[in-house]
């Protein structure tokens, strides 16, 4: 793998996994030109700045629950039954705690106490990547803030740095999660479980994007009500999220911190 950058390696690794090829076959993919050509057929892998718009006018509790279920089942996120050790990639939080700076005592009844859907903002200028001592979390060229759980040393500097609380740490061994709370765990044999002592978080379904599929939460939400979650390339003026951002007034979490969150909320 000498001389090949990380992103390229991951692309190939993802691609070979998608095609169901083994290690040996993966090397055959390395033929010059062939890889680029095959990637061209997958429009979703071409993004430069993946982002999401959450349309709260369409969102409801049931849809949020479906999103969470879809994501956590797909990524083998265990329910540890203990808030202290909680691991979550996508979850619900009330308006006043999602946007603490926006809240005021006369907020409309519609929004008072209403739940919002939260996930990693895949920031343009992510503080978590800045502080990571081993580059175990880094920003990909397509905007995904990625996490390498095999390199993470578990220092948890990223958790202190993330202003959005999107990072979870495996305080114990996730494979020992209580069986009663986790029927059929691991729920997805095609996605790795984690070991104890590493940080994890939403990866914008990088493994699905690589196959040209939408993130699991987007698919789950939109199967109930179309356009509840809009995912796409914010760098592309013709993309769905850009269209949505043009048409609606949106807010982001803590934009004043300069981290450039890429998840937008239509209020």
């Amino acid at each position: 793998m000498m001389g090949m950058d990380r992103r390229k390696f991951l692309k190939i690794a993802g691609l070979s996994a998608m095609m169901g090829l083994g290690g040996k076959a993966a090397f055959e993919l390395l033929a010059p030109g062939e890889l680029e050509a095959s990637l061209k057929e997958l429009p979703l892998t071409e993004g430069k700045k993946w982002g999401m718009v959450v349309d709260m006018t369409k969102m409801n509790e049931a849809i949020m629950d479906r999103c969470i279920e879809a994501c956590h089942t797909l990524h083998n996120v265990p329910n540890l039954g203990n808030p202290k050790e909680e691991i979550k990639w996508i979850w619900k939080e009330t308006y006043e705690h999602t946007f603490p700076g926006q809240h005021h005592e006369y907020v409309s009844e519609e929004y008072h106490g209403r739940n919002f859907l939260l996930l990693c903002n895949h920031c343009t200028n992510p503080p978590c990547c800045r502080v990571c001592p081993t580059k175990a979390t880094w920003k990909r060229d397509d905007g995904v803030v990625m996490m390498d759980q095999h390199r993470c040393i578990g220092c948890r500097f990223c958790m202190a740095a993330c202003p959005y609380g999107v990072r979870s740490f495996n305080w114990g061994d996730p494979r020992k999660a209580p069986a009663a709370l986790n029927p059929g765990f691991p729920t997805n044999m095609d996605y790795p479980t984690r070991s104890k002592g590493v940080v994890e978080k939403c990866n914008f379904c990088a493994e699905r994007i690589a196959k040209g599929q939408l993130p699991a939460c987007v698919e789950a939400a939109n199967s109930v009500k179309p356009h509840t979650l809009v995912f796409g390339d914010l760098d592309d003026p013709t993309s769905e999220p850009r269209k949505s951002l043009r048409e609606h007034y949106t807010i982001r979490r803590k934009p004043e911190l300069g981290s450039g969150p890429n998840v937008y909320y239509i209020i």
Partner: protein
Amino acid sequence: MLDKAIKGSPQYWSWVIFLLALMGVGFGCYLYQWFEGLRITGMSRDVSWGFYIGQLTYFVGVAASGVMVVLPYYLHDYKAFGRITILGEFLAVASIVMCGLFVMVDLGNLPRMLNIMIYPNPTSILFWDMIVLNVYMLLNLVIGWNVLSAERKGVGYQKWVKVLIYISIPWAFSIHTVTAFLYAGLPGRHYWLTAIMAARFLSSAFCSGPALLILLALIVRRFTSFDPGKEQIRTLGGIVAYAMIINVFFFLLEMFTAFYSQIPGHMHSIVYLFRGLDGYDRLVPWMWTAAFFALVALVLLIVPATRRRQDILAVACASVIISTWIDKGFGLVIGGFVPNPFERVFEYWPTVPEIFISVGVWATGFFILTVLYKIVVSIKEEVAVS
């Protein structure tokens, strides 16, 4: 020179065995943590650093404070400190060992620790902290060892040692500045996001470190025939006094900015620490204890009559240590995480195994300190006789 460490009185050996026993208990608890993960600590998703990182921060300060005896001697030719620079340098070495161990016990995946060097990230302050701490430890070990062996042989130390000494002086300031930067550059953690953090760290280091050194000097005098010296202790007392005044002053500056501006984010952590927030007030008695001992220390240190009496100075120094330890070794880290990014309060309290692991680390530090000081004292006694 190490041979000096294995010839000692029964008293010395019982102390060493006591420390070894504590290290053993700490190691046993660490094994438990090794197999179970950090879930055996009080840390959580919301307060993701705790006692270990607090102790790291505190002992970086103690290590940096070695410069408070080195600087007056080498830069101002304050001869009296020539007698005790070695005590400051070896205290720095023992402290950095503790810092390293506190980081190691805090890591979720210790075997991967070398990833910091294999895949270094120059934008990570933790990467730089690792570098400055290790270099500082080496500097002090090499300097202390060479100066001491030269003293033993009755000759002057070599010129290159002097170069290292001059490097070690700004380096001491760098270690605590970089450690402050671990905290002071994180967006969204208001209690830490303050330009005065490094200055606060240095001021609290320069009172708590020399305060500990004074107590150690008094212990050395009591149990050995080597007297660190009356004038030395008196001058150190003056340093502790000034540094503690500046430390408290800097803290009050933080209070002003937070409470005059009335910006909620700036006030929340402080309110949590000193009054409690949303009904959670676990740290309140601790923070007021710190405030009380700070006040006691200030009075005893500022009044010349009390500062110059060694028994009262010892009380003042103990007060400084208690106050700064609570403030910096505990309140600082926890306060930064409360409230969390959702402005919810989740409290932290260390567990029993977590405390015992910390005790094991302290015991390791004091074991190294004991061995190094034993060598120093034996050589000082030897030189005095010949």
